[in-house]
């Protein structure tokens, strides 16, 4: 296809969270522009947190997202604890990791099985998967419910939990409540494994990218809710240095700030970044499952993020079992905090990647400044790079297939557009 102008257009991207669009223009087989647009209105969370007491912030930031509220609650809590000079450890730390595992399970399974898998099967939606493979979809439903139930038991409610606070929890669950989940978690190891192996049979588009992978890293564990920020290019920094290395800029075509690294370069956060940066983790069994799924030590094909999500789901089930077995109900459900002025940083691995928080507090504990950098904002630039690369390789495709491929590419990122608005209409213009 040459000396033609092409416009391929999707006005509202499906099976992603939030409102957005994509515009690709191609002239004489050359890509002129790729714009990933987020037009969901900005919600000004950072502005209306100012003047609020630090203790209110986790419950307010939870409302940024109905799928990954834990990322916001815990990042905010951590940042406040950092500012106030307290530390949450032991069984309270176990509970935090456990509820986060619950969020990974429910978020990953919803995206992988219901929203992303249809792309690989040439199906329009998950209903068609259910007709072809009801057992798989039933398992996915039960897995997601398990993730939600973990969040419910630890957090008091599955969506926007109410039991989490700066310093820990309002009430620590009894060990017996958590132990009741163990038989289902044992089942979940098998079912998440079966889904991962089924997805490994998909026909993956051929695309390898040289990603700058950015994630948390912790010496003792596959980092979820603590650690330093690292990249596969040798960066190792404490949280307070994040804003010196990573920046956000406004681009005219998007309501979400775009994240960039070292003055404008794209970078990748999320399951693939975590997987690539933690070679010896998550666990022997999870690595074994990854090998059985055909994944090497490093994954550079963005479409295989669906597999990494299922490996992480398996791992989160394994980890939940371990955490529950080790847990003893603590006498104190939270650590008391003094009210002092200061600045604090928090960062956790939301299902879609690192979610960074910074707050400044005055001497009454009121927020003077809030900065929240969600994962989808950070991935926007890399999404555009992936789109450019796959469109270049797929110019021979007719417009409808190319549009499908572009949407699939965006869904690799499980973009949470309402979080980033800080989302998708797709236009491919061939001039």
């Amino acid at each position, binding site marked *: 296809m040459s000396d033609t102008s092409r416009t391929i257009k999707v006005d509202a991207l499906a099976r992603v969270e939030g409102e957005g669009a994509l515009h690709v223009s191609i002239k004489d087989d050359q890509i002129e522009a790729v714009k990933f647009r987020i037009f969901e209105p900005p919600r000004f969370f950072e502005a209306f947190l100012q003047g609020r007491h630090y203790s209110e912030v986790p419950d307010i930031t939870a409302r940024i997202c109905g799928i990954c509220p834990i990322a916001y609650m815990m990042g905010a809590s951590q940042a406040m604890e950092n500012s106030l000079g307290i530390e949450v450890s032991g069984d309270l730390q176990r509970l935090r990791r456990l509820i986060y595992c619950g969020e990974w399970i429910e978020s990953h399974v919803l995206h992988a099985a219901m929203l992303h898998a249809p792309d690989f099967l040439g199906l329009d939606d998950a209903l068609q998967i259910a007709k072809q493979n009801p057992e798989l979809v039933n398992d996915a439903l039960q897995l*997601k419910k398990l993730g939600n139930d973990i969040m419910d038991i630890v957090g008091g409610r599955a969506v926007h939990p109410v039991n989490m606070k700066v310093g820990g929890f309002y009430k620590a669950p009894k060990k017996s409540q958590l132990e009741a989940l163990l038989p289902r978690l044992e089942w979940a190891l098998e079912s998440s494994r079966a889904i991962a192996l089924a997805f490994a049979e998909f026909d993956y588009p051929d695309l390898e990218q040289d990603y700058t992978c950015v994630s948390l890293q912790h010496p003792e564990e596959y980092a979820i809710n603590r650690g330093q920020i690292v990249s596969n290019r040798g960066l190792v920094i404490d949280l307070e240095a994040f804003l010196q290395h990573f920046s956000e800029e406004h681009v005219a075509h998007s309501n979400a700030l775009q994240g960039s690294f070292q003055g404008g370069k794209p970078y990748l956060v999320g399951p693939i970044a975590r997987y690539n940066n933690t070679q010896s983790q998550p666990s022997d069994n999870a690595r074994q499952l990854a090998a059985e799924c055909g994944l090497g030590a490093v994954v550079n094909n963005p479409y295989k993020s669906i597999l990494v999500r299922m490996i992480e789901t398996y791992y989160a089930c394994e980890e939940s079992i371990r955490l529950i077995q080790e847990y003893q109900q603590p006498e104190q459900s939270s650590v008391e905090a003094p009210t002092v002025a200061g600045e604090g940083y928090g960062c956790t691995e939301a299902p879609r990647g690192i979610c960074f928080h910074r707050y400044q507090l005055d001497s009454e504990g009121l927020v003077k400044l809030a900065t929240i950098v969600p994962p989808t904002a950070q991935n926007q630039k890399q999404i555009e790079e992936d789109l450019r690369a796959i469109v270049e390789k797929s110019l021979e495709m007719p417009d409808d297939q190319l549009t499908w491929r572009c949407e699939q590419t965006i869904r690799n990122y499980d973009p949470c557009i309402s979080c980033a608005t800080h989302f998708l209409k797709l236009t491919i213009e061939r001039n």
Partner: protein
Amino acid sequence: MSATDWLIIGIGNRLRRDDAVGPLLADRLAKQHLQVEEHSGEGMGLINAWQNHDHVILIDATQSGATPGTIHQIDAIEQTAPSELFHYSSHQFGLAEAIEMARILEQLPKKLYLFGIEGADFSYGEELSPQVQRALDQVESQVLAHIESN
């Protein structure tokens, strides 16, 4: 069958004006000692919510272009739930998809009845449009009448 055998699920977001009609009706029906649950409308979660119940009523706001305040009633066991009535973000796996998914997976309750109330305004805020506000009493009595006659 007694009224307590029924689970009423009020679907919507209380902070998006007319979208709150499902949760608000659930509040009213809870006062009538019915078992109610509030839900965002996310499809997988909905299937989970009705899994252990034989008799379920779903109440949700609709956006079909009908006159605001119009009450749609659908027997979801007998007929397909039209996805153009029930929008759920761009995830496109909402109420209508959940019902059809559950039908395929044989996970529908024995009785599943849907009340949809046509909304006018889904912007940020807590106040219902006057037409939707006026429909509340009528929907409440229709739900109660449905439970009584089934």
